[in-house]
């Protein structure tokens, strides 16, 4: 059975169904992260000494700002390579698409490797989620974000590998799938843009 409106726009919405679907999904994701952002605000406002929870006994910040700064640059760069992958398909350049999407997946890996080193250092110093409220919200928010990075990488790796066969059968449909996967990836980048200052800098 053929799925309707995968390529053509529905007359009533002016959009193909995939586009509507991904935006509704992203709306639900906003509420998921929104609940955590709201919890963060409440916990921070209600804490007796938030500053002490974010510092070592020598007064230094327990989170590594240079590593998080690097990860911000990595994720922003991956958003650019993602959108360039879509633009390459719009120009009928499958080779360039593979190069850009491959770079996006690699940058995603790079983000996770840096996060792994960050987490390892915290665990090594006994800074576990149960230690205080700040660390609990830090691990919950960055952990959930990390799971989203993995999810986005799986979708992109599929489109880079077996999923790319669709290009030869229906290039427009494949381009739409890449655009939708890109929308999710940019959302993941957008969440990090807010996580970076609220967890590391404030």
């Amino acid at each position, binding site marked *: 059975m053929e799925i309707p409106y995968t390529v053509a726009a529905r007359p009533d919405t002016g959009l193909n169904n995939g586009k509507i679907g991904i935006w509704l999904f992203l709306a639900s994701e906003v509420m998921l992260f929104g609940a955590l952002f709201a919890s963060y605000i409440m916990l921070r406002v209600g804490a007796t000494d938030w500053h002490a929870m974010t510092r070592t006994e020598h007064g230094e910040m327990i989170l590594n700002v240079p590593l998080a700064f690097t990860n911000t640059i990595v994720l922003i760069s991956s958003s*650019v390579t993602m959108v360039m992958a879509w633009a390459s398909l719009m120009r009928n350049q499958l080779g360039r698409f593979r190069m850009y999407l491959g770079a996006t997946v690699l940058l995603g890996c790079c983000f996770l490797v840096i996060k792994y080193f960050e987490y390892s250092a915290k665990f090594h110093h006994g800074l576990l989620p149960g230690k205080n409220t700040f660390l609990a919200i830090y691990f919950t928010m960055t952990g959930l974000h990390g799971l989203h990075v993995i999810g986005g990488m799986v979708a992109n790796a599929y489109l880079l590998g077996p999923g790319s066969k669709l290009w030869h059968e229906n290039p427009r449909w494949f381009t739409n799938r890449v655009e939708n996967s890109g929308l999710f990836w940019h959302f993941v980048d957008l969440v990090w843009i807010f996580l970076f200052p609220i967890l590391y800098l404030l």
Partner: protein
Amino acid sequence: MSDHAATDIDRHVRVYLIVFASLLVLTVVTVGVYELHLTPAAAVTVALLIATIKGSLVACYFMHLVSEKKLIFLVLALTVVFFFTLLFLPFVTSIKDHIGI
């Protein structure tokens, strides 16, 4: 693809690169402001303002919201309403507790 569409994509790509450069600059500015050690209220305001500008650039250009259809905006408008309700509802209830209603 027609020449017109190809030119259109070339224009898009130029915009993507400008947005990329802007995001890099704003990220450096965010960390630069942090090093200034402003008062907490000023630091929160500036950091959230810069993050909002960066987030808007990603949503408008990388996620193509500048040229999106009305239905998507309706979905997002509804999401924004629920998001801010979620964010501020606890404060409203705590104010009610303080004034005893």
